[in-house]
């Protein structure tokens, strides 16, 4: 059987499953549409939340980031799991007790103000849109791989599918589809890792392989030492050291963590179980399911790095494995024969003479020209960086997809992985789309613009809003604002950390916090973060101008501190909140 046939088989079967579930569990009322009727078991909710939580960025991009940056990639691992601890202990039990369907609802009521609600809606829309862009990009990458088409066409196909079943099923449909998607993702992620672990380290459990010996081809050396040796030999920093400054690493991890705790689409998930006890056990399940994937990601990263270098470095182009040409065809790998020896050379920043550390060429990605070079490779129109001997370019997002090819795994494993990638992207995109559409239909239309909206009209608005949001997401999926999926997503977390986290935390833990403080805090926090990101990503800011050396990915943490300071100061200077609000806070604090 050919690879294509396997792919279609696995993806077709998983799709039939999702759509079947979505159809069977489709939402009948607004309550079902928003919170699945409130009666999902902690175990099922845990799985669904894990699927919702683990986006295409996690699934596709994270292992690739780990592979290329080693220790530095830990920021995503710790950030996205550690944030879950914050979310569970600081936010969810209290917000659930409050018992409203959305985060802007809480903010609107706690801060007794339409203006606060409006600010929260705008923040929610902004955060979700940034996040969903990353997902659409991920979907695009998978479909482009699957059908051998360009990423733009892949993005459009993915968007059509997401719209179909998120709009149809509402939260109830999504929850049960996500359970199925989690299972697909978990298998798809761990099975290739197990195969590769056996080949490279002789260990069945990848996590033990990572801390074990590299045994391929004779005697064993400690795996990470082997990897460090490979890295330093090619002019990269040691795999276990990374190259980010400590303060930047700290801030990015913190932004991801606090952002997680302020992400509207994850908080909403916990409104679907029946009591606080169930919320706690649901959170334990969720993090355990997430940990299965997050503990595997570092092993995939490390293994694929060894494989990539082993298979490509110093290999003549015509001897390179077939998958290299396949990825070159879809524009995700490229080779420039700088020294004209017909061999692929891969080098890091340590081997280049000037500042353009390790770059093959200038520009974000390869721009292919017509025609072929001397060895049959695709020619590029990018300006080549002569100061660096590195000849190999690959998109970081492609690592997970390329991994089973590199390890020569059976075709069905690759097909399973494709199905998993799609599940990851679809589940998150669907969850986000739902929050976006609720924000618009419920928080904006019903609560602010037109209070006499009927249930039916509200769902109609929700569906219209999801279509609009998707169109925006498609545009940015095709023209991504960040270099790779994980980075785009990191911005969304920075925005959430700097806007929602302080407003929610102070709303629960400080009775003195009033509407003036909360609004001022949210507005300054998100504006500060947003302008920093825009300045450095689009208006030509350079790393030497970074505030204390903190990159745009990590600035959300600073934004959060700004928010806390502004909110506290303003609230002290203005009137105390009314007594009924203080009573409300007391009520929320009791389980």
């Amino acid at each position: 059987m050919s690879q294509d046939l396997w792919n279609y088989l696995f993806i077709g079967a998983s799709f039939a499953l999702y759509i079947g579930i979505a159809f069977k569990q489709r939402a009948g009322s607004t309550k079902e549409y928003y919170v699945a009727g409130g009666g999902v078991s902690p175990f099922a909710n845990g799985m669904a939340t894990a699927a919702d939580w683990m986006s295409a960025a996690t699934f596709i991009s994270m292992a690739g980031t780990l592979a290329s940056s080693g220790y530095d990639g830990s920021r995503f691992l710790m950030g996205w799991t550690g944030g879950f601890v914050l979310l569970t202990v600081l936010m969810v039990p209290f917000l659930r007790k409050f018992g409203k369907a959305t985060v802007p609802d809480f903010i609107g009521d706690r801060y007794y103000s339409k203006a606060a609600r409006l600010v929260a809606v705008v923040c929610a829309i902004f955060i979700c849109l940034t996040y969903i862009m990353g997902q659409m990009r991920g979907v695009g990458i998978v479909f482009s791989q699957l059908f051998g088409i360009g990423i733009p066409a892949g993005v459009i196909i993915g968007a059509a599918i997401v719209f179909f079943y998120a709009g149809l099923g509402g939260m109830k449909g999504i929850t049960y589809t996500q359970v199925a998607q989690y299972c697909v993702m978990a298998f798809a992620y761990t099975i290739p890792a197990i195969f590769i672990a056996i080949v490279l380290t002789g260990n069945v459990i990848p996590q033990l392989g990572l801390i074990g010996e590299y045994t391929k081809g004779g005697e064993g050396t400690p795996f990470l030492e082997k990897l460090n040796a490979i890295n330093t030999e090619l002019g990269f920093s040691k795999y276990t050291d990374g190259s980010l400054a400590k303060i930047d690493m700290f801030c990015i991890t913190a932004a991801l963590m606090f952002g997680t705790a302020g992400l509207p689409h994850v908080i909403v998930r916990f409104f679907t179980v029946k009591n606080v006890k169930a919320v706690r056990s649901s959170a334990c399940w969720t993090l355990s399911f997430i940990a299965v994937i997050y503990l595997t990601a570092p092993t995939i990263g490390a293994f694929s790095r060894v494989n990539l270098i082993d298979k490509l470095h110093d290999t003549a182009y015509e001897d390179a494995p077939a998958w290299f040409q396949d990825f070159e065809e879809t524009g995700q790998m490229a080779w420039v024969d700088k020294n004209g020896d017909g061999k692929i050379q891969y080098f890091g920043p340590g081997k280049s003479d000037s500042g353009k550390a390790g770059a093959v060429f200038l520009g974000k990605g390869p721009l292919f020209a017509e025609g072929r070079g001397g060895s049959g490779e695709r020619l590029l129109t990018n300006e080549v960086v002569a100061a660096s001997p590195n000849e190999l370019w690959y998109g970081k997002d492609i690592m997970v997809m390329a991994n089973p090819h590199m390890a020569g795994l059976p075709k069905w494993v690759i097909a399973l992985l494709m199905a998993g990638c799609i599940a990851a992207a679809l589940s998150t995109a669907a969850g986000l789309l739902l929050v976006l559409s609720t924000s618009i239909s419920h928080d904006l239309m019903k609560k602010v613009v037109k209070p006499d909206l009927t249930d039916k009209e509200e769902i109609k608005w929700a569906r219209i809003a999801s279509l609009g949001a998707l169109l925006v997401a498609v545009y940015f999926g095709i023209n991504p604002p960040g270099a790779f999926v994980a980075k785009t997503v990191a911005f969304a977390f920075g925005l959430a950390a700097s806007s929602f986290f302080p407003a929610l935390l102070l709303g629960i833990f400080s009775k003195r916090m009033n509407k003036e403080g909360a609004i001022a805090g949210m507005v300054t926090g998100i504006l500060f973060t947003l302008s920093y990101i825009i300045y450095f990503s689009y208006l030509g800011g350079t790393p030497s101008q970074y505030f204390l050396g903190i990159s745009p990915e990590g600035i959300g943490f600073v934004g959060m501190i700004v928010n806390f300071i502004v909110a506290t100061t303003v609230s002290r200077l203005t009137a105390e909140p009314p007594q009924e609000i203080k009573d409300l806070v007391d009520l929320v604090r009791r389980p």
Partner: protein
Amino acid sequence: MRDAEDRYWKANLRWLVVILGTWFFVSFGCGILFRDWLDENFFKVGTAPFGFWMAQQGSIISFVLLLIAYAKIMNGLDAKYHVEEESK
């Protein structure tokens, strides 16, 4: 009644501090701030340097354990102060 609620909330806050303290220590502490020192001077986990292992594996395992502990402690507190929520 008010008094019991206040004590419940205080106990709640005390546990939060303990849990978040551990949370900070395993991730930011071991995984970032003292990572290089731990890599050099602390024991290895298998063949992996300790700080690196904490950043990529140990912290995540700790988080899961933390949440399990949290659920147990909080359920215990609820029972002790008789503030359990009736299931709807």
